[in-house]
């Protein structure tokens, strides 16, 4: 229905593949994603069940525990891959929700202007200042049963303000453009103008915002899990680190219990940021020269 700009389209792909920041970032993220999807199929061990008896195995010491075992004999590999899966779920849902709320609040505020904009903007600034982790702490502490879905929803609902501010600024600048007036003079209704004329212009920007939100949600979830307020059943990378620290893995020098989870989060989130920069360079060529 929307005639994509063919000339701009292949120009975009041409520069996209030439931009190495984008290539490296995307590669790392995909690597972990694949590991999260097919990883669990390589092991029947349940991440939390105590399988191995005796001294914790080092990685590759025995071929059925390639990543070694925890102090309780749990299979670190299965914890790691299931944890990865949880991280991607939280990132996608939490990040997605935060972007969604931010976009809606930003759009309506930016386009309507006047009283609605002032009210929404006040609300955004208030939620922006409140340290989101503190709110998450309170909410999670009071819930006996916490699923990963619920955690993602909470993270999503508290991480949207800066997206709303950014989208509002973008909508403001687009709204004053004359093609919006032209659309009004063509008899189009406001909602149709927002979604048919303004939104398509911001697709590239929304992608950038989602990537950052995805990274933010992952970090937030790991922090929550680490304090012990993560999902009550199942495993996540943050929970792994929590267990490791709680059971003095550091003193016992079981590094393969706490190094991989942190490394995975850093790699994924770092790769996401680098992808974001790469995409930003592709979208506005001015940055490319630097």
């Amino acid at each position, binding site marked *: 229905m929307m005639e994509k700009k063919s000339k701009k389209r292949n120009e975009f792909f041409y520069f996209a593949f030439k931009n190495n920041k984008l290539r490296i970032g995307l590669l790392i993220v995909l690597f972990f994603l694949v590991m999260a999807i097919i990883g669990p199929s390589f092991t029947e061990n349940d991440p939390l069940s105590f399988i191995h008896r005796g001294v914790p195995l080092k990685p590759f010491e025995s071929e059925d525990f390639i990543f070694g075992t925890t102090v309780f004999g749990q299979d670190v590999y299965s914890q790691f891959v299931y944890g990865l899966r949880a991280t991607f779920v939280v990132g996608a849902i939490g990040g997605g929700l935060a972007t969604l709320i931010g976009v809606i609040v930003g759009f309506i505020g930016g386009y309507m202007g006047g009283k609605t904009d002032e009210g929404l903007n006040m609300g955004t600034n208030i939620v922006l200042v409140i340290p*989101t982790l*503190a709110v998450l702490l*309170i909410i999670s502490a009071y819930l006996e049963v916490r699923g990963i879905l619920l955690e993602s929803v909470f993270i999503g609902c508290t991480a949207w303000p800066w997206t709303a501010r950014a989208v509002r600024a973008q909508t403001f600048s687009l709204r004053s453009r004359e093609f919006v007036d032209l659309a009004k003079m063509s008899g189009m209704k406001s909602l149709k103008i927002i979604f048919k004329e303004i939104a398509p212009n911001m697709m590239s920007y929304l992608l950038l915002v989602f990537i950052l939100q995805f990274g933010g949600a992952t970090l937030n979830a790991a*922090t929550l899990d680490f304090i012990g307020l993560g999902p009550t059943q199942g495993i996540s990378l943050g929970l792994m680190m929590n267990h490791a620290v709680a059971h003095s893995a*550091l003193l016992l020098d079981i590094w393969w219990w*706490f190094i991989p989870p942190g490394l995975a989060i850093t790699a994924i989130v770092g790769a996401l940021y680098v992808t974001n920069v790469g995409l930003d360079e592709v979208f506005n060529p001015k940055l490319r020269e*630097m």
Partner: protein
Amino acid sequence: MRRYFGRKVLIYLLTFFVAVTIDWLIPRFMPGDPVLSMLGRVGTAHPDTVNAMREYFTRVFGLDVPIWQQYLNFWASLLRGDLGVSVYRFPREVADVIMTAVPYDIALLVPSILLSWIAGNKFGAYAARRKWLDNTILPLGYTLTATPYMWLAILLAWGLGIKLDLFPIAGAYAFDMAPHWSWRFISSVLHHWILPFASLFLVNFGGWAIGMRNVIIYELEADYSHYLEALGAPQQLVRKYAYRNALLPQLTGLALQLGVIVAGALVTEVVFSYPGIGFQLLAAVQNQDYFLLQGCFLFIIVGVLLANFIIDIVYVIVDPRTRRGMTGEMA
């Protein structure tokens, strides 16, 4: 000018009001009767402590009184500074428990935030200067910001603490000492402080470096930089102006990042069992001590709001555009 501050104070008061309301709402919002669920969790079988606890909880929660009355009581007790009694340290007041933790927090947060902000900005400015610098500092910066606070803490604790045994990794001072003014005690406190400080410092440092690098490139492309170059001003003067102007958005960035940094400090304290609010928070969570939890929450909110307000004042003093902008142009 007064109007600008008036509006700012209004927003902060409103924020505080909303935060406290959230804090009050959550326990009542959760399913089930909070008193029963809390009693169940406390898990002491001994009858009279259970009765004392139930009587205390019902009084504090005030479930018998209509909802708005509870709300007013909550505010009343809050304003009196009575945050309720800590469950897992039963006789001690929540406020008192937190007060002992706050100084450690400040000792950890304030230096790490300020130093990382200054160092990050300096490095970020250098990064924008030469290509090879940009290619080293930028990836380093991205990895650091992407590192979860607690993981870097773990790495430092494990690496420098245990493996090389250079620094202690637990507590704020040696266990065999009691707090007193002596050089030995102070050096022990410093010795314990290094690792948590370093881990917070490094993660924040990455963020500021990247932020400054992007902002200063924008300022170097601004019209006034082009004009200075056109008049043959040395690069050093052009960069000095661009750096000063780039610091301003970084200042607002600092205000917005406070929430995240405080969260980072909490987990870092948990790793090093550094007796700040984070540590108390973990204990509160593990012992289902809701009043301590809500007390910590309020302290964090107040701390962040206060810091935001201070940064706003500093911003107005530093950036003439906001100050003079308000008095309007002399057309």
